[in-house]
């Protein structure tokens, strides 16, 4: 093996090991699973039961749910974790050197990439039987749309994580953001609100267009992926180490 590749391989192994531990940590958090998977699945099934007929295709019926879950994983998982680790002091203790920051961000991104796809597949496996048989191509397509949507929402999450805010403030901010998106989505479906153009800018609405093929998936993925890599690079360069509460 060429010697110049050795540090790259060592770093890659370290990143994978950190990603494994971060994923384990996330999967041990039951509330995340309840709010990001169980609750949306239940809500989807209840809303389907309430409808007299289910003529709409599965993707059309489920696209808003997929969009909401991807936003939830990006906000309350990917971004919230960055703020949480900073405010707990863990970042201050162990993630202050540029090499550690790079490894941490790469691992964190890999970990949440895996988690987001896992959530998408779980939602598909739970809800699809009400609309017919499972199809691998459909599942793969939805997972790709979901991942693109997750990347897109993670960019917004990185902006919030860059703010000098405490854990509770971040929680409130993400809750308000989610609520506003849901409210705006509801208003746009009943179409009684006059500012229709503003509602069309709702990130959930834009995300659901990816699922419904109104925005081409390859282009959306390339833009979202490039935006997130840029966001991670900027985050790494300006990484907040000190907790907001710290006297330092």
């Amino acid at each position, binding site marked *: 093996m060429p010697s110049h590749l050795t540090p790259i391989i*060592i770093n890659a192994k370290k990143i994978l090991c950190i990603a494994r531990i971060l994923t384990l940590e996330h999967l041990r958090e039951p509330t995340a699973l309840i709010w990001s998977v169980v609750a949306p699945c239940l809500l989807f099934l209840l809303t389907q039961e309430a409808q007299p007929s289910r003529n709409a295709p599965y993707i059309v019926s489920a696209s808003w749910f997929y969009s909401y879950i991807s936003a939830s994983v990006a906000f309350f998982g990917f971004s919230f974790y960055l703020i949480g680790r900073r405010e707990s002091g*863990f970042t201050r203790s*162990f993630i202050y*050197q540029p090499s550690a920051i790079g490894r941490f961000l790469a691992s964190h991104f890999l970990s949440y990439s895996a988690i987001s796809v896992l959530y998408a597949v779980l939602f598909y496996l739970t809800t699809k039987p009400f609309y017919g048989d499972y199809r691998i191509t459909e599942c793969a397509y939805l997972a790709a749309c979901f991942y693109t949507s997750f990347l897109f929402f993670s960019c917004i999450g990185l902006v919030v994580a860059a703010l000098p805010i405490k854990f509770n403030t971040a929680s409130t901010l993400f809750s308000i953001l989610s609520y506003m998106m849901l409210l705006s989505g509801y208003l746009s479906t009943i179409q009684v609100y006059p500012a229709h153009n503003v509602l069309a800018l709702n990130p959930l609405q834009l995300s659901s267009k990816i699922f419904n093929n109104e925005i081409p998936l390859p282009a959306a993925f390339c833009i979202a992926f490039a935006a997130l890599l840029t966001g991670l690079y900027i985050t790494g360069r300006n990484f907040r180490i000190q907790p907001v509460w710290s006297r330092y």
Partner: protein
Amino acid sequence: MNLLNLTDLSFSYENLPLMNNVVLNLEAGELIGILGSNGAGKTTLFDLICKIKKPSSGQVANSARSQAYLTQILTPPPLLRMSETGELIRHLSSAAPLSEREIMARLAKWSPSLYKRYSLISQKKVARCSYGEIRSYFTLTLLLLESDLIILDEPTAGVDAEFRHYIWLAINSARQEGASVLVSSHYTEEIAANCDRFYMLANQRLEAFDTGEEFMSRYNASSLDEAFIKASSHED
């Protein structure tokens, strides 16, 4: 040859000057203590060395290939086991591909008793560990990373007497294997007893002492604690 040189280092928090023209040097393989009262600037001094903060003026020449820094704030993820947290720290803080087996073998060589206690803590969940266990576990983990510069900010604060003994044993073992160690503490006796020499940080100055006797003599004190109190309140 000096591994670390601080030259005329000054630092202020807005309008509050904390250090003024501070000078410090650390040779390879040396163990140096930093004494100072609460708020004197020990943590800030370490942050400046680790480039977490920028000095107002002066220079930090740090030629360490790898460094480990134990900070005062330690809040590991509560859902992990200590061994998983240790692995996380190993991969984040060290560029070397160290396996758990390697570091455990190294620890067993330092002290079988220490190895046993470290192993017991590593099996525990973070949420079930006491503050002292977490602090001692992370101190040992960082000491085992084969760094050539190890900076420990009050490693023995809140740790029981037995583990305090083990921490100093581990510090000396790491040092015997070539590491340079910079350690801060409120306990004047443990600094005077264990370190090659030490500095007292007070009133924006860093004063060097070779022995505890010199420290007591400088402040005309009959005990190390009395010298510490006098040094902290003394102003030119």
